[in-house]
């Protein structure tokens, strides 16, 4: 009796299992398995993307570091060049100023020289005139008498004789 399947139960089992199977195969299990597969691929993709992003970050960081290093080198170079330029400009300016000054000094010196000569010449001329005037005045005063004139002539003659001999 246990081994003989009952018709009614077979019928209801066939019906209910078919319905359950149909519903679950359409709206149950595929939804679950598909979603889980989708989630798995989503997680996989996310991990991949994260890995790529990480790699990108690393490469960007490296690039950044390189950029910073090169910028720093550039800075040092520029600074050095600036310092050189500055030194050169200063030295050049100094040289120029020196030569300019020299030149000016030369001119001044020449001017001074010529002015000095001019002054000497003027002085000498005035001295001559003055001495001639003084001598004239002295001569006029001292040679007022006859005797004085004769003494002088005598002395001059002596002097001339002495110098001649």
């Amino acid at each position, binding site marked *: 009796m246990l081994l003989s*399947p*009952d018709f009614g139960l077979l019928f209801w089992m066939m019906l209910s299992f078919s319905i*359950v199977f149909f519903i679950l195969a359409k709206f*149950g299990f*595929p*939804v679950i398995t598909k979603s889980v597969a989708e*989630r798995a691929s989503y997680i996989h993709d996310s991990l991949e993307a994260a890995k790529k992003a990480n790699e990108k970050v690393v490469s960007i960081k490296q690039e950044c570091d390189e950029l910073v290093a090169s910028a720093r080198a550039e800075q040092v170079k520029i600074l050095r060049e600036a310092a050189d330029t500055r030194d050169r400009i200063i030295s050049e300016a100094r040289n120029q100023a020196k030569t300019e000054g020299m030149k000016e000094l030369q001119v001044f010196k020449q001017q001074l020289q010529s002015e000095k000569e001019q002054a000497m010449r003027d002085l000498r001329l005035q001295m001559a005139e003055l001495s001639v005037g003084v001598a004239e005045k002295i001569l006029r005063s001292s040679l007022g008498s006859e005797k004085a004139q004769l003494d002088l002539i005598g002395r001059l003659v002596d002097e001339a004789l002495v110098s001649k001999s």
Partner: protein
Amino acid sequence: MKDFSRIIVLLFCFVAASALHPAFAAEEQGKHESAAFSAKDVIMEHVTDAYEWHITTINGKHISIPLPVIVVGQNGLNVFFSSKLEEGHGSYNGFYLSESEKYKGKLVEKNASGEEIRPWDFSITKNVFSLLINSGILLAIILGVASFYKKQKKTGELKAPRGFIGFMEMIVMNIENEVIKPCIGKNYAKFSPYLLTAFFFILINNLMGLIPIFPGGANVTGNIAITLILSLFTFFYVNIFGTKEYWREIFWPDVPIWLKVPPFMPIIEFVGVFTKPFALMIRLFANILAGHSIAISIVCLVFITASQGPALNSSMTVVSVLLSVFMGLVEVLVSCIQAYVFTLLSAVFIGLAQVEPHTVKR
């Protein structure tokens, strides 16, 4: 496979069910107090189908849920409640419960020559009713879980579920990844819904059968009609989707010619086509039936020893309760294992029918 043992441990919470067996037994005592106690009758009454759902008997009064009886007899369709049978002392409208050896307990009618014949019986019996309840529960659970994923797809947020849905996801994915995929191979997606349905259908019916009171307790998967339909599904799945190579291996296998010309091997192989699902049917049926029988036998120990004096009776009661708890645990394990084995073997048989010509492998 690792996770599967964890699932089994979780399901041990069903132990509470087995602890209730003694309560169930008390009801049996009332029924049999007048007649001599027969463990065999009690077991048979429990494991076979019935037209009503018997709950308990108090002071000789049966308390049961009446179920609709639908029969197509000689005078056409008859629909009535099983309680009508009891009111009419076992008969109604010409139908009565047979006492004969052949149709014992089944509804029969007499034909013109006075012989007992079975009408077309579509009654919602205890097993059918239980089957419908369990199918409803299964649909509610799986569709409930599926709706979580549907909602998730709508919002576009792919998050792992928690709690019960996560638990169900774990089982579903475990069966798919550890059983279906390795057994069937690349075409697994076509068979996965059937195998998952079979697994959960058997599991829910097995587990509901372990609950001793109303919504459970019916011996559904321990009935051969149920396992017959399940194995028929597997049979058709295996053979309809079988490849050309599968059929060639049956009728013209790679063996020496003298084994094929008087067709020994083809006959053996062809018989094998039917024995595989047959074994599936018998395995599930026999395991669950045996489980129910043993559980009730152990409870019956109490009543068998009742006439042997209070000392033996009370000591056997303790033993019986302890054994019942143990059997309850074993039955939970068996429920899971049988559902798993049915799915696994169905997947293996389907996988064997998906063979490709062995040009590369072997």
